[in-house]
């Protein structure tokens, strides 16, 4: 294990870009765990201007995965599963080497490029998409 990965792989910084992504999360969240209930449940706050572009996602932890204090999020439809994974990992302060999986229907992992909007169309109910997430050391 002599090689350093050299950070050649840039994880997408779309979280800071603001264009796509979970725009309800204040980008300056260096402390991802807000102290009080000022920790907005962005899903319940303003409809983010254009409700058609965002969908409500409810995140549920599986196994020994840390539970997010904020579970409900309004997410751009075009946000990919990979983008969501990156966001949750940052929020939970997971290291890059830890794998995080997201499931629909509690059993099926959509591919990383899948857009949440599509998943909402297929699996959403009661106006939201329930996604389960699970931390794992899947390989190595």
């Amino acid at each position: 294990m002599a090689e350093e990965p050299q950070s050649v792989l840039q994880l997408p910084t779309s979280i800071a870009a603001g264009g796509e992504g979970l725009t309800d999360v204040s980008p300056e969240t260096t402390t991802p765990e807000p102290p009080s209930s000022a920790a907005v449940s962005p899903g319940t706050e303003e409809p983010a201007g254009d409700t058609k572009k965002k969908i409500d996602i409810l995140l549920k932890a599986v196994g020994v995965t840390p539970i997010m204090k904020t579970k409900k999020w309004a997410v751009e439809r075009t946000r990919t599963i990979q983008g969501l994974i990156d966001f949750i990992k940052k929020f939970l302060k997971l290291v890059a080497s830890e794998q995080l999986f997201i499931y629909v229907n509690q059993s099926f992992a959509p591919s990383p490029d899948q857009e949440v909007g599509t998943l909402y169309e297929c699996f959403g109910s009661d106006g939201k998409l329930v996604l389960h997430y699970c931390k794992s050391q899947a390989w190595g």
Partner: protein
Amino acid sequence: MEEDEFIGEKTFQRYCAEFIKHSQQIGDSWEWRPSKEAFELPLDDCEVIETAAASEVIKYEYHVLYSCSYQVPVLYFRASFLDGRPLTLKDIWEGVHECYKMRLLQGPWDTITQQEHPILGQPFFVLHPCKTNEFMTPVLKNSQKINKNVNYITSWLSIVGPVVGLNLPLSYAKATSQDERNVP
């Protein structure tokens, strides 16, 4: 922690049968091929044509086998250009989705290895199964809690497939939930 969830060979066959059924419904090209000898590993086979960025057409072939020693399914695959040139391990690595690369690169290189296919006797790449239970167990336990039917093969393949270019259509996710009584 929780006890690991293994699956026996008969259970493997049952899940594969359900998986194949849906595959046929949607015109996906998975097949079930029983092997000649009774104790050999059954396999499925699927040919997927993928186009690489460099305008080269690459053909991928995926097989799902059952590992008696690990008691889990294992994904074997190979890839070649249309002229028959096989892809090298290096090519395969380059094709791994960005989101998995960092994790795979940091670990020892026993995640994707090249091995002889136990039935065909030809070189294939294999996604090592030693950690399968680790990521499958939480999902299965969670589903059991709410009495939900989960097709192990579908779940497992949805997780490992994308690492090596195999993306299952979303309809597979719904196929196993037709019998369930609960709404998540």
